[in-house]
């Protein structure tokens, strides 16, 4: 006789929209969006740096807004458009990060780029104070931020002149 399968409390098979594709994942209530992206979808561009919302290395976009994916429960992300670094293809900010040498080890880079990209989309007229307010949510230990600053300024410049 077939035994009734044991279902773990609260675990659900859920559908997500990631980088324009429908993706399925088995999710515990306590899973963060970062866990699901990395462990179930193989999208490892978002990095764990602190899992505490302090470093921003796991930043992704949720409906175009930058979100630290370690601070968002996976279930909260259902029904929203999620964009990870793997979903960015040839954007100006990526090109500018390369051109300006805006990274060394590269571990914080995905998060910085997602945040910068969102800034150019949401606030193309961002002034110095706003740039600073936004990018202070990400940490970089290698650079002195000079190159990242050049890259975001150039990206905003390009956006405006378009």
């Amino acid at each position, binding site marked *: 006789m077939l035994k009734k399968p044991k279902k773990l409390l609260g675990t659900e098979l859920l559908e997500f929209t990631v980088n324009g594709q429908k993706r399925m994942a088995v999710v515990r209530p306590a899973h963060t969006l970062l866990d699901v992206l990395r462990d179930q979808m193989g*999208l490892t*561009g978002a990095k764990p740096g602190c899992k*505490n919302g302090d470093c921003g290395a796991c930043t992704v976009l949720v409906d175009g807004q930058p979100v630290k994916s370690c601070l968002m429960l996976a279930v909260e992300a259902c029904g929203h458009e999620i964009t990870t*670094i793997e979903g960015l293809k040839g954007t100006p900010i990526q090109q500018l990060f390369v051109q300006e040498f805006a990274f*060394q080890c590269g571990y914080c880079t995905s998060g910085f780029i997602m945040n910068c990209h969102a800034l150019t989309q949401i606030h193309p007229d961002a002034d110095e104070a706003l740039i600073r307010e936004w990018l202070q949510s990400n940490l970089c*230990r290698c650079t*002195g*931020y000079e190159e990242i*600053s050049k890259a975001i300024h150039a990206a905003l410049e390009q956006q405006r002149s378009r």
Partner: protein
Amino acid sequence: MLVVGRSIPKKESWYKVTGAAKYNADYNETGQLYAWLVTSIYGHALIKGIDKSLSLSMPGVLAVVTGDSAARLTGPALEDRPPLAADRVRYFGEPVAIVVANSPVQAKEAAGMVKVTYEPLPPVNSITEALEKKALLHEGLAFYQPLKPNDIFVQSGSNIANQIKIRKGDMARGWSESETVIESRATLPPSVHAAMEPRNVRAEIKPDGAVFIHTSSQGPYDVKKEISSYFGLNESRVTVQVPLVGGGFGGKTTPQLEILAVLASQAVHGQPVKLEESREQDFTSSPGHLGLEACVKLGATRDGMIKALEISCWVDTGAYTDSGVKMARAIAADCAGPYNIENIHGDSYCIYTNHTYVTAFRSFGRLSHTFALERAMDKLAYSLGMDPLELRRRNLIKPGQYSATGVRLNASNTGNLTACLDRLQELIKWEEGLRIETGPHKVRAKGISCFWKTSSTPTNASAGALITFNQDGTVNLNIGAVEIGMGIKTALAQLLAEKLRMDINKINVVMDVNTSTSPWHWKTAASMTGFMVGNAVLEAAEDAAKQLCRIASIVLKCPPEVLEVGGEKVFLKADPAIYVDFKTIACGYEYPDGNAIGGEILGRGNFIMHHLSPMNPETGAGKTGPAWAVGAQAVEVELDTLDYTYRILKAATVIDAGKIINPQNARGLITGGMCMGLGYGCREASLYDSGGVRMNPQFRTYHLMRFGEQPEYLVDFVETPQVDAPYGMRGIGEHGIIGIPAALANALSTAAQVSLDFTPLTPEAIWSTKKGGPQ
């Protein structure tokens, strides 16, 4: 030069901006299990018992590994550290047990169920408490094994793990020639590397006993050596693989988690086990950056010529020595700074405390020592009524003079610090004044620091390089240097492209390091990778070129001596129109009739340090590194004299880089170093409560510099070639940090008109010092 001196973007650039760059924890192994560390909640305690029964009964748990009192101790210089604490914990965060489970969540939950019973002991919370023997950390100190004989001088019955002496000249004469004498003390706390990628490892033991390790490490070959020695395997049984590393700064130079991961894998019959540290564990369980206390006494003539230096440095190595003993030695070797001082009495001590143990950190101790010395230089200038920059200029060490350890200096091994200081003076606009009142309660002030650093590698540190060819004539470069962010793989490709005079885009650099297939490299540390591996690459290039010319000489019907390589061709020097392409000969040449000669060209090169010697135990005499990199730095601040908050306006570095391989990259290394130095100078410190418990093990409480806080950076280079280095280059990866905390303290001391001889230089601490209270 075709390629050297050009700002070529890093080879892995597009991987890093698209999420395609893979770091160690991004990989998983089929059948992988997950480990989680149980760590000490006390700074110092006896372990009275460990009850793992509840943990073992949790779902998915396969093993709980605990320490063994009889286990061999480990350490890169002095074997004093149990991989897992058995009877006693000596720092907060020390690994006590490892839980292995089917999922990360299960492992972490079960780790919380391991019940460790402690009996707290009084913690040794500072260097002073250690010297007062508030408690002895290692009763068995005298029995610990140094890896090399006559290398470590422990003082049994104390907390002193090593003492290094520098005795140069005649102190009595030095003091008698001195018309002014000043004394200065400095205190710098331990801190953390805070690489953005937390330390992590995977280990697996195959059915035949072979061990495979994937780790985030700067020293894969040291991991191989340590694992084979610790587990009694020959080195061919151990393979260590390292992909891109998410920042190192010295924190990933010595093995730690690797041993734990192998122990965990052993406990589950060799299955692959992944062990990742949380940020909190990375900050507390894995080694950090040393703390330092130092006393400096300087004597000089009235016109500012330094005649005597007496310096004592106490390194807070934490609970175990790891690289602390070596850093104490490195500090001793460079103790006079880049100044010509004929009479020196130096003592450097490595001190145990109940803090997290320490390992290499960017500058290998020099930034802390430089802080102490450069504060003393400013005090000497003040006492002489002399411009601090002029005092330094008068005493800069020059060719023909001798270092504290008796090395005779020349332009090649030291560079031109006078030129650096001159350029710095212009860059920072020194002439406009050191202290300028800019408003009712605002003061703008400048401070400077000089620095120098040589390396402290083993005297036989070595590197290799292997060049292979593809059938289309393009090239693969395989080296044991780890890419930790400094762009070394690209720089080495630039050296190779320059040497073979070829297009750098036709060079593929093997990005990951595999100790079974990549040639040995001592480790990616000490700013020595460009020098050591670079020399090996140049030799490999010459070897390949020679082989190419030999085959080409048959094809072109001439002696090999009349041929030259360039543009992926071998051509006649006298007539480049007569040539043969790499692709025709690099993997064997085929005659029109089908007969063939040659075979794949394999270029090989190696390099080993030469003329280095260990330091004399009584005098310190010896040569620890092939050359120094020297430089001068400045910081400009604006201080609010009411509340002592300040803004860092400018930070400047002029360094003699020998030859810049990649200008934009070099600037980034220097500005990054300066930013890290400013963070350490103004806010970073590992804080402990009275019980030795770490108070700030998170980025939320341990603050790094953030975007927008960086000052205006001024960077320039002097290029005095180091003749035995590739194209004259000097290693500069660490150096941006060295003098910055000192320059910041000098600027703030001038601004606040009070001696600030400590870090972190928080407004509260400046206020307190100004009011005569405790720091």
